[in-house]
């Protein structure tokens, strides 16, 4: 692997990491989910550091090119993230529905109590 490529990818990793930290700082992402991205970045970084071993493993597993293995791993990881996000969205949707219903029922109750006070 050429040194220039390693440097370029390392800078990319660093950029991603800074982005994640900035987003957490501005409260636009909860710590829980940011861990996912930090792990992701570290995985890229580690495979950069040990790229010789990555090449070895990909050859051992029978991939035609190391990039194929890297893409496959990346693709599978992104699939997992999307899957988890879909389930999180569904659960949140259920919570929103429950909150909306409770709020509407309470709202009715408050109105009734209000009306009673004015009479």
């Amino acid at each position, binding site marked *: 692997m050429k040194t220039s490529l390693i440097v370029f990818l390392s800078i990319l990793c660093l950029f991603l990491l800074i982005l994640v930290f900035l987003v957490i700082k501005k409260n636009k992402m909860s710590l829980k989910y940011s861990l996912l991205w930090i792990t992701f970045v570290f995985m890229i970084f580690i495979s950069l550091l040990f790229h010789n071993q990555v090449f070895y493993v990909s050859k051992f597993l029978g991939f035609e090119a190391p990039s194929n293995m890297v893409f496959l791993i990346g693709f599978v990881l992104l699939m997992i993230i999307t899957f988890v996000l879909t389930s999180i969205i569904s659960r949140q*949707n259920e919570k*929103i*529905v429950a909150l*909306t*219903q*409770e709020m*509407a*029922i309470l*709202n*009715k109750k408050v109105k009734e109590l209000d009306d009673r006070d004015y009479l």
Partner: protein
Amino acid sequence: MKKLLIIIPAYNEEKNIIDTVNSVKTIESDYCIVDYVVINDCSKDKTEQVCVDNSFNYISLPLNLGIGGAVQTGYKYALYNEYDYAIQFDGDGQHNAKYIEPLISELEKGVDLVIGSRFINQISEFKSTKLRRFGKSILSFLIKVFTKKKITDPTSGFRGCNRKLIELFASKYPIDYPEPDTIVTVLKKGYKVIEIPVKMNERKNGVSSINAFKSIYYMIKVSLAIIISGISTEKEKEYED
């Protein structure tokens, strides 16, 4: 004296809601006190204003939840206010209030879920397209496969249930197109379900929530829901007949 709540879900029904509520208001029963509640599912028209002007008993949802979410709000309201029975009655004028009494007497006999069916005994001349009938027969077939019971009108939104099912529905109710799904859940759990013949009117105003473009999507989604409920629901009580 027992208490019955008629749940009237309404989405953009400013033209129908007055007639619907008035037809329900006059109902009296020897068995129970009859109340109603309109669930305004964040209508874009003046449904809420109509409810205020006529001093209807209504709940207004701050967000549009869809029919399942709206009806479930009614079940939660019934649970919190300790109603013994609940009846779903559409706000669009399709359902006829004179069939509420037969529903109540079935509930009094100890049935857990009563469904008003358009197709049992064929007393209704409700016109339905061939495609729609075909869709319904597929749903009936699926329900029969999983529960061994024939339900002639699985999508009917005219239904009544007792306290046990009010509790169940308040805690868990499917969001969209909930009727066939809940029938399977209830039957699988071992509750008693029967259908009684009712006549339904053609819609006066407004459009059905199921249009042609969505019907295939609807069929796939509901079939999947029936299959999942059919496989995953555990039996709760013994069927006593």
